């Protein structure tokens, strides 16, 4: 593992910079390991509201690369449990913050991957999730009341992981998704909003979990998703927008659910994802030349993984 030193420019100048033709897994593992260490960084504190999500992103990327052991299990579980908000009955993104649906899903996902779901009071968590459904069928992220299909997906996914989908008002949930469907076959964040690849993933993902793919116009949506590929191989989230590595996951995972990944040029997309790697410090950026972050690192690695299988 003498490929690089992660921060020192002096260190990297004397070493050979690896080519980005392949996935630089060892470097990405190092990059993720180092993320938790820079707690003196301002960015670290400005992103406290996403801490648990970030751990989920980093850990999932490690698991995909077959390196789940690269982060300490006990420390991770301990941190997750410190995010428990006992007043609300859900998980916050950071110890001392308020419970939120996004972080509650991350906590459940991490605990399942670590085989430690027995640490939580499933009944209370389920109650917290169900309490956030609005009369329209959509979900709120927390008691503050922000609503959108992201939170609906979080609720459906979390309930499914907790084997509690039977407690959900599925008809109302599906009706909201039907109301979010647009003329181009895509879905938006709320009723009336424009189709957007990340929202397409959450809506289609929720419908797939609920066994209601009959709601989706698969041919039109598959075509709309395929249209997201640009001549440079990257994918965008809406027509006439820039490509971004995160759509390798949003678009591809939706296409995988529709079993239509083969409709795009996979080779060109792989090349695009790989070109967004940081060959010195590790990690993947939104597009070539930008700073990497853990969010895009997961979505790059996950996109790559979907394309390989």
């Amino acid at each position, binding site marked *: 593992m003498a490929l690089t030193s992660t921060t020192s420019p002096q260190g990297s100048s004397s070493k050979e910079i690896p080519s980005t033709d392949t996935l630089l897994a060892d470097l990405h593992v190092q990059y993720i390991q180092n993320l*938790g*260490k820079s*707690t*003196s*960084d*301002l960015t*670290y*504190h*400005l992103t*406290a*509201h*996403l801490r648990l999500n970030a751990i989920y992103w980093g850990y999932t990327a490690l698991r995909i690369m077959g390196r789940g052991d690269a982060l300490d299990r006990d*420390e991770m579980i301990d*941190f997750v449990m*410190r995010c428990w908000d006992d007043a609300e009955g859900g998980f916050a993104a*950071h*110890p*001392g*913050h*308020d419970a*939120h649906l996004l972080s509650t899903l991350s906590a459940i996902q991490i605990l399942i991957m670590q085989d430690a779901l027995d640490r939580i009071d499933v009944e209370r968590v389920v109650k917290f999730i169900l309490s956030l459904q609005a009369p329209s069928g959509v979900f709120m*992220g*927390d*008691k*503050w*009341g*922000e609503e959108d299909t992201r939170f609906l997906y979080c609720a459906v996914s979390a309930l499914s992981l907790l084997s509690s989908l039977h407690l959900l008002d599925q008809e109302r949930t599906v009706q909201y998704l039907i109301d979010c469907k*647009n*003329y*181009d076959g895509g879905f*938006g*964040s*709320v*009723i*009336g*909003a*424009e*189709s*957007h690849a990340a929202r397409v993933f959450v809506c289609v993902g929720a419908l797939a979990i609920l066994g209601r793919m009959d709601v989706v116009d698969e041919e039109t949506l598959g*075509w709309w998703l*395929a*249209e997201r*590929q*640009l*001549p440079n*191989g990257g994918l965008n989230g*809406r*027509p*006439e*927008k820039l490509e971004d590595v995160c759509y390798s996951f949003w678009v591809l995972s939706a296409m995988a659910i529709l079993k239509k990944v*083969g*409709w*795009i*040029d996979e080779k*060109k997309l792989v090349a695009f994802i790989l070109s967004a790697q940081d060959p010195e410090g590790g990690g993947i950026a939104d597009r070539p030349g930008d700073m990497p972050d853990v969010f895009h690192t997961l979505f790059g690695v996950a996109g790559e993984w979907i394309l390989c299988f």
Partner: protein
Amino acid sequence: MSETKPLYSKRPEWSDVVPVEQYEIVNPVAPIFYSEQYKDATNYFRAITKMGEKSPRVLELTESIIRQNPAHYTAWQYRYETLCATNASLADELKLMDEIAIKHLKTYQVWHHRRLLLTTLRKPKPELEFIKKVLHEDTKNYHTWSYRQWLLAHFGADGASINKDGEEEYDLADLWEGELDFVDSMLNQDVRNNSAWHHRFFVVWGCGIREGEQDRERVFKRELIYVKQNISLAPNNPSAWNYLRGILKSTKTPLSSVSTFVLPYTRPRDPTASRDIVDLENPPPSEGADLPSVQAVEFLADILEEKGSESDINQAVELWKSLATELDTIRRKYWEHRIRDAHLKLKASK
């Protein structure tokens, strides 16, 4: 501005509060480099939320945190609760938010806070002006557009302008009046703005039928002319072609009803064609347009597939082949799928 103010730990009016430090996974061994100011404010914020205090100084504190980190949703949430608890002026809050929103357009919380304020203030019309101004900064901002759609759906529905006491609080028709002109101005600025096309669909087809729009036949004709004109200006604009598909689908009109219009866009430019005759129903491609248009070729193939005779299908297959091998090679596999699929359907029908 918060930058010039002393730390909360140095202010006498905060001396009664004991700050609460953030819990960390690892105790930082290195000296703390991150902003003292942010750390100081959030330490006091943690103390305040623990005590449950809701007072004017909490508004000042949360504003300082939000300005430093607009994604801090707990600060937003607590701020809103404090505004309500202290009976603060929500109109003043909205004014303050105008400035913060423009600085942080991509932050979810900025927009949710506005929704909460508007739900209570119930003055939607000036918001439309505000959104217009904000879209000037970022013409495709997803949050801004969906906020506009929320505003129109929430306050623009039948009966929405009548309050609990049965009084009309604002003019419903007035709210919608400028919407089509607004979309038009956005599209004039950038005809490829998909958000604006989507919004047009939302206004005309997606959100109820308003006075003056009841004659749907007339509305449909108007929209057809509008979208065709825009396609003629930029024949390779997928958003406009999608809008055309959208209005045909929503009115259950066959695709073939526009074949005369589509045809000239599927071929290389015809140098002998005259542009002197103005045909509103079938405007020709503009001078210098890049032809054939991929979207037009796709469209024509769909028309042929919809017609469905063997010779139609064979023609469609030829078009798909040209897309796969020349015009849209990146989606070669999709076009090959269309060819296979059409052949299978043809076989099955025999």
